[in-house]
């Protein structure tokens, strides 16, 4: 099969839930509304999963409940069509 282009895969996932892995341990799940050349993302109904450094690094879930602009600088991976980390 011919190769998939990464930016096309991202483009195809506009409108779906995407799971973003950031450079550290933070993860974000949201509905992808769009992105730019730098892969800054606009996400809707975003949920943040971040380690709480004041609580031994346990993951804290924060519903951001609004459209956000996620800076592409720290984005390591994008998982299209996903609801994020499975609940334990």
């Amino acid at each position, binding site marked *: *099969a011919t*190769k*998939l*282009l*990464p*930016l096309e*895969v*991202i483009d195809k996932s506009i409108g779906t839930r995407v*799971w973003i*892995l950031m*450079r*550290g*341990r933070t993860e974000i799940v949201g509905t992808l509304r769009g992105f730019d050349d730098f*892969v800054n993302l606009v996400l809707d109904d975003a949920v943040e999963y971040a380690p709480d450094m004041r609580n031994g*690094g346990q993951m804290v879930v924060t519903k951001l409940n609004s459209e956000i602009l996620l800076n*592409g*600088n720290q*984005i*390591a*991976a*994008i*998982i*299209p*069509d*996903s609801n994020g*980390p499975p609940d334990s």
Partner: protein
Amino acid sequence: MSGNRRGAPPKRDSIFELSKLMDTMVRVKCLGGRELRGVLRGYDDLVNVVLEDCDEFLRDPMDMQIVTDETRKLGKVVIRGTQVSLISPEDGTEEIANPFLGADDDGED
């Protein structure tokens, strides 16, 4: 040095073609310590990468530098080229005995 006008800069060929690794299992290490492994299904000039059936290697929560053998399934993943530090084929790698163990003396060469 008269009027040396630059057109397009000369195109530099990459020293390694990812096309060689297409449809093979590769391990991708990211800046920041994440390690992922999956089948290479695509890439671009900026080394953004598409992996399928991708797993992420989990790290020890006590010490994020320690990568365990435990994985979690991610599925199809786009990895940002700006965050890639290493791509290597799984086929052709093997684990060897740790050469750094047993250094009891000081000033070991």
